[in-house]
């Protein structure tokens, strides 16, 4: 069985994350493990005090956590934040990236978990002194405490990024538990006044950073999905072998054997697709975004089918949150709706070329994705 689920991103980072997740499985999150474990430094360049790592390094952490079902906002805190910060001028970016790496600034993106960092929920208006921000951002991850929020905005028809003190933003208008057990919140910014220096960047650099953050979020969520699928199938296999009904192990019923075989074949296909996505990312492929959207649509289909099958095969236990497979199924279904759902991405894929989205600046060839 162990060899049936080879790691996608093996190495020390995966081992450490996996061990941490195993030790903290099904516990309430205390403190700020993501920063305490130094993972926020992963993508931060070495000259800013970071590890200078790659998305594959971060994917190791994502995989390690998913393997034991631990839910932490690694994608948001360790990928989206540093990639958005890189839109700022060199000196400003360096200062904040350094603070992110050492954990002195706890920055969270003010972005709905269900939307990509390219989505505009907030608008900004330039005043005589500073700016005012307006808009409603629903479903922001609040799992970890934040000292600052990075807010992507539209300003005079252009993209901009603001860094705003959490105190200035104030309390959310509503708090929730998300589908997979994170803390979520809705924020309403009503002509929120911020100082001149809060605007970190605007224009092309922001568009590039938002595109890169979106690509990263889609890639890492896909990696999370495949790792969670492996966990789900492992748990289901264990259940079928251990659980006895009518005097025999469930694993002896052919209909269940075939069902889990179908899940495994879907997992292999999903794994292949994610590996393909990472290859395209590493090679700077012209149609990376198209492939990521395809993966989003396809993984949602496979993940939901497997989640539903696992719940069914666990019988009554399948509807209890105490069971890891059930929590993993919740995570898989929730991941469908992270960074744009399958319907949104399918709509982009099927849109006529003339209405396709703007040129992605993270794409070296400049082709329309």
């Amino acid at each position, binding site marked *: *069985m162990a*060899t*049936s689920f080879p790691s996608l991103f093996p190495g020390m980072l995966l081992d450490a994350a996996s061990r941490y997740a195993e030790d903290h499985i099904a516990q309430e999150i205390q403190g700020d493990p993501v920063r305490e474990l130094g993972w926020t430094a992963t993508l931060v360049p070495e000259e800013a005090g970071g590890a200078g790592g790659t998305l594959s390094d971060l994917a190791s952490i994502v995989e390690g956590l998913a393997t034991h079902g631990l839910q932490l906002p690694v994608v948001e805190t360790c990928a989206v934040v540093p990639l958005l910060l890189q839109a700022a001028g060199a000196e400003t970016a360096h200062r904040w990236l350094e603070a992110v790496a050492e954990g002195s600034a706890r920055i969270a993106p003010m972005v709905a978990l269900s939307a990509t960092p390219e989505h505009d929920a907030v608008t900004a208006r330039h005043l005589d002194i500073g700016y005012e921000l307006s808009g409603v951002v629903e479903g922001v991850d609040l799992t970890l405490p934040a000292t600052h929020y990075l807010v992507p905005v539209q300003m005079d028809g252009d993209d901009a990024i603001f860094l705003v003190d959490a105190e200035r933003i104030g309390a959310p208008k509503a708090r929730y538990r998300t589908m997979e057990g994170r803390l979520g919140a809705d924020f309403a910014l009503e002509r929120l006044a911020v100082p001149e220096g809060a605007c970190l960047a605007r224009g092309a650099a922001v568009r590039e950073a938002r595109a890169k953050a979106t690509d990263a979020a889609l890639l890492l969520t896909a990696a999370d999905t495949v790792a969670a699928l492996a966990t789900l*199938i492992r748990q289901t*296999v264990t259940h*079928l*072998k251990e659980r006895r009904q009518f005097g025999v192990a469930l*694993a002896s019923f*052919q209909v269940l*054997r*075939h069902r*889990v*075989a*179908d899940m*495994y*074949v879907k997992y*292999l*296909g*999903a*794994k*292949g*697709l994610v*590996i*393909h996505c990472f290859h395209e990312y590493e090679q700077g492929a012209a149609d990376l975004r198209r*492939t990521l959207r*395809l*993966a989003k*649509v*396809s993984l949602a*289909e496979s993940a939901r089918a497997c989640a539903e099958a696992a719940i069914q095969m666990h019988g009554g236990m399948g509807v209890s949150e105490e069971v890891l497979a059930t929590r993993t199924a919740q995570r898989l279904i929730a991941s469908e709706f992270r960074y744009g759902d399958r319907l949104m991405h*399918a709509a982009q*894929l*099927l849109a006529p070329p003339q209405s396709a989205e703007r040129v992605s600046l993270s794409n070296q060839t400049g082709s329309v994705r």
Partner: protein
Amino acid sequence: MSIDYAGFRRELEAFARSACPPDIRAVVAAGQKITKREYQAWQQILNAQGWGAPSWPREAGGTGWDIRQRLIFEEVMAENDCPPLYHHGLGHIGPVIIRFGTPDQKARFLPRILDGSDWWCQGYSEPGSGSDLASLSTSARLEDGEWVVNGQKIWTSHAHEASMIYMLVRTSKEAKKQEGISLLLVPMDTPGITVRPIKTIDGWHHLNEVFFDEVRVRADNLVGEVGKGWTCAKFLLERERLPPANVARLELMRRQVTQLVEQASRAAAGQRDFSGLHHKLLLCEADVKGARVMMAEATDDLIHQRPLGVQPSAIKMTCADVAQRLTTIALDAVGPDAAHRFLADAGQDVPDATWIQNYMFTRARTIAGGTSEVQRNVVANELLGA
């Protein structure tokens, strides 16, 4: 010396574009059934180039290419609408003869496979044994220095146009059922062989029943040792567990169906809703990309002699499933216009109706070569134990 795979791909691309006749490419591009005429003509062209047997070792007249080169070959040929290689001679019995055959058998049979003069079919399945191959009962007894064959084979593709059949026969009933089976090479014009067509749901004639009534075969047409045919059959199956053509051809089919849906969508001009089909095509596209990586990983495992585990079963299941979904999409796209034109008079070309035939034909993908249920058993045994 390391192989320049990119240069190799360019060389193949140039060849495929210049050497494959337009009429043959048109058949492939349209998704029409590829017949002996196209297969043979293309085999002769490839053989003249020295590429008649991509999977064979050089000393047997093959190219000596590694499996990655074979994968590239299949991809490039599919991308350029060239026919696939006819598998029964080149992919199945050829390698078995190379591995187990006598020098005389190699000299008699291999050159005729390479130049396309012999057209082989496979005598494995019997009415009482489909996926359960070991239960076969067609018998061969040695009499006056010849094998005398009696029995029946079924689902024999191309038997009506083949010149040779390789067949598993029971030469002993003493041992357990896998033992006592031998592999025999039989000319199809031998007296006592009767081929009867099986009418299939796709309207094409490719399957047959083959009856053997006191068919006398020269003794030295038995491959390997008497009673060890199962070893040859297993070798054949293992060699062909990962046919690189599957994934490459799937991408070709996906492009064809995408084009078909776009054309049908434009022609329907808002009268029919194609959004569901477009969405299904996206899923197929993603699945083909995933299958391609699965294939590449299995290729690496083969190159490094690592065990393949369930990968061949998973790849076969995936490819069969995607092929069926693609042809189902095509059926939906052309159905209203083509359903009443399923089979045209001889000589008439009805491109849309071909997709209905393709839909029907593709139902066999989850049956032939081990049903998907058998493949699921293989995967489940790995996950859950036997």
